[in-house]
């Protein structure tokens, strides 16, 4: 067990900001922190469990058909989280909408399966997947916090006002599509300037 397998995915190899993977959910569901939390949990579940299974089965999956095998495993787990969220959290399910089933084509998950899980031990894979999940969560929660704060004026999570209203006339454009591109563009440039990655 190496702890660096866990820590490298959080900042240095952050899936969103360093590798520019998984951009669709990062832009689409970051209109509120609540949605970002739900998405992070769903992606973490699928990423950790699918890579765990793929790593455990790596000696049984024939090399030539590995990609279809990975996709079937991932798609089954996405179906599980889709049904779970539909049953236990209908409002969140409605907000995430089509992006919940679309976790199946999130390139972070297939990417980690191909690059890491199919070659390494189960324990290393678990740490790697957990680290990448934390990094993804950090990225989308920070983007959504900026967008919600500027676009809605306050941050509300599950009915609790975390940050009270700053202004009565927020910049609505920030929670509309242009705000998503703008926020990520500026964040990327700032992170590069600060040489974080």
């Amino acid at each position, binding site marked *: 067990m190496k702890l660096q397998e866990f820590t490298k995915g959080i900042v240095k190899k952050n899936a969103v900001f360093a590798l*520019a*993977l998984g*951009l*669709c959910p990062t*832009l*689409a569901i970051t209109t509120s922190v609540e949605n970002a939390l739900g998405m992070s949990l769903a992606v973490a579940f699928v990423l950790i469990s699918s890579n765990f299974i793929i790593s455990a089965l790596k000696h049984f999956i024939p090399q030539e058909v590995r990609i*279809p095998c990975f*996709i*079937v495993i991932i*798609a*089954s787990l*996405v*179906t599980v989280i*889709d*049904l779970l969220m539909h049953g236990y959290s209908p409002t969140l399910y409605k907000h995430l*909408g*089509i992006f919940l*089933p*679309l976790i*199946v*084509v*999130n*390139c972070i998950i*297939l990417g980690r399966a191909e690059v890491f899980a199919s070659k390494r031990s189960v324990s290393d894979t678990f740490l790697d997947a957990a680290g990448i999940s934390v990094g993804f969560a950090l990225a989308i929660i920070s983007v959504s916090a900026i967008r919600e704060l500027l676009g809605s004026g306050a941050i509300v999570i599950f009915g609790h006002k975390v940050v009270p209203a700053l202004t009565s006339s927020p910049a609505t*454009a920030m929670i*509309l*599509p*242009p*705000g*998503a*591109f*703008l926020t*990520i*563009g*500026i964040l*990327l*440039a*700032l992170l*590069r*300037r600060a040489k974080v990655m």
Partner: protein
Amino acid sequence: MENLLGIAIGAILINNIVLTKFLGLCPFFGVSTKLKNATAMGFAVTFVMTTSSILTWLIYEYLLIPLHIEYMRIVVFILVIASFVQVMEMFIRASSPKLHRALGIYLPLITTNCAILGVALMNTTVEGYSLIAATVNGVATGAGFLLALLLMAGLRESLELADPPQAFQGLPLAFISAALLALAFQGFSGMIL
């Protein structure tokens, strides 16, 4: 009778797949550096999107619903799209090497393009379109993707000559350009058809 013109214009301009719905962003940023590649990618996506819309609609309506296994849609759709793209690639390689050279490398990438699966899901479970409406939606969404990709590639080719601050070079600048493009497309959002 559904409003087919409304669906088409809605999919191209009002709810543009890339700039409003945020689907297919990987090729949008990955293949938009050269106008020539962007054109090829755009046409490949339009083609696959149209045919896979029809295919997944038929499978959903005549296989999943009668068997009451709608919850299997994610697994079934992704497998159908992946195998269809594979067959398509072999067919194009055998029948037209010239077309294969132009589109070849983009076809495998399309399998993991979330726009294709997104449209298949929208046609069936979200909107519940008829077969004709689903086909129109597939063609129009593909055309919308092509439009966004061409606009972006044109912008980025001109930006090559610009001299931005070092931190903004490349991807950050592409995001800011996309933000302005998305802002322009917001102008269509009030249209009622």
